[in-house]
């Protein structure tokens, strides 16, 4: 084997090792970020389950409101008092017609980790037809 062949082999080896190391590093970063996103999804799911349990409790033991609009506002006031896990944003929006609310949960760092739940007080018998 000539010196030139040895040099060429060394260059090829170095090149492929460097490319492999880059692919390896980017893959590891990808796996790490996928794990973080998975944790964000699980965190949002957990928060949602807590809130769902909470409003089911309210529905079971809460009094009948004079109207569905009032019941929606009471649910918003009540949910605002419930603690929220760190790293999670919660948005409670009264529907335009007032007879329900949208509960949105989103992870601070992972915008795709998001849940939007509609809550209609009439569906939980927190109010009746006027």
């Amino acid at each position: 084997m000539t010196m030139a062949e040895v040099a060429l082999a060394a260059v090829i080896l170095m090149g492929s090792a460097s490319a492999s190391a880059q692919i390896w590093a980017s893959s590891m970063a990808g796996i790490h970020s996928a794990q973080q996103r998975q944790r964000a999804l699980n965190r949002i799911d957990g928060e949602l389950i807590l809130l769902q349990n909470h409003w089911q409790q309210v529905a079971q033991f809460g009094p009948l409101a004079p109207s569905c609009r009032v019941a929606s506002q009471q649910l918003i006031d009540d949910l605002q008092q419930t603690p929220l896990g760190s790293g999670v944003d919660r948005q409670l929006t009264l529907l335009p017609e007032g007879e329900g609310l949208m509960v949105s949960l989103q992870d601070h760092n992972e915008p795709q980790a998001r849940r939007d739940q509609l809550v209609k007080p009439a569906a939980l018998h927190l109010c009746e037809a006027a």
Partner: protein
Amino acid sequence: MGLLLSSLSLQATSLQSQLRFRSQVQARADQDQLSQAAQKLVSEINLLHPCLLHLPEQDWTRAGMDCIDASRATWLLQGGDGSPADVHTLAWQPDASGKKVMLLLELPKAPRGTARRGLFEIGLGGEPIRAWSIQEQGLLGAQS
């Protein structure tokens, strides 16, 4: 060579994780849409048509129903005006105890031609009887 192969294998794992995440995000969006439809349906029944609480869905459009006319019942089952994006009610099945209803909803326009179905348990109680809880039982990725 070993390093190259292990890198490529890691790369495949990373891509697989990304695809899994995307499908989980989509599944949750579908789940939320089905849950919203369940809330709307149960709200409407509780407020305006409580007679349907104990009737299986196949009887809703029966002739001679007192509390709802057939066209309104069809509207409820279709989840709206029959637009392809509407969530359909596939089943509303009260159990023998009269305290629970199993509700099966279908979201027809999911991506890649698959239909998603959501199963809910509706708790009944009170006097006069009304629905007062909606529990998600799971998302079924049924094929259309």
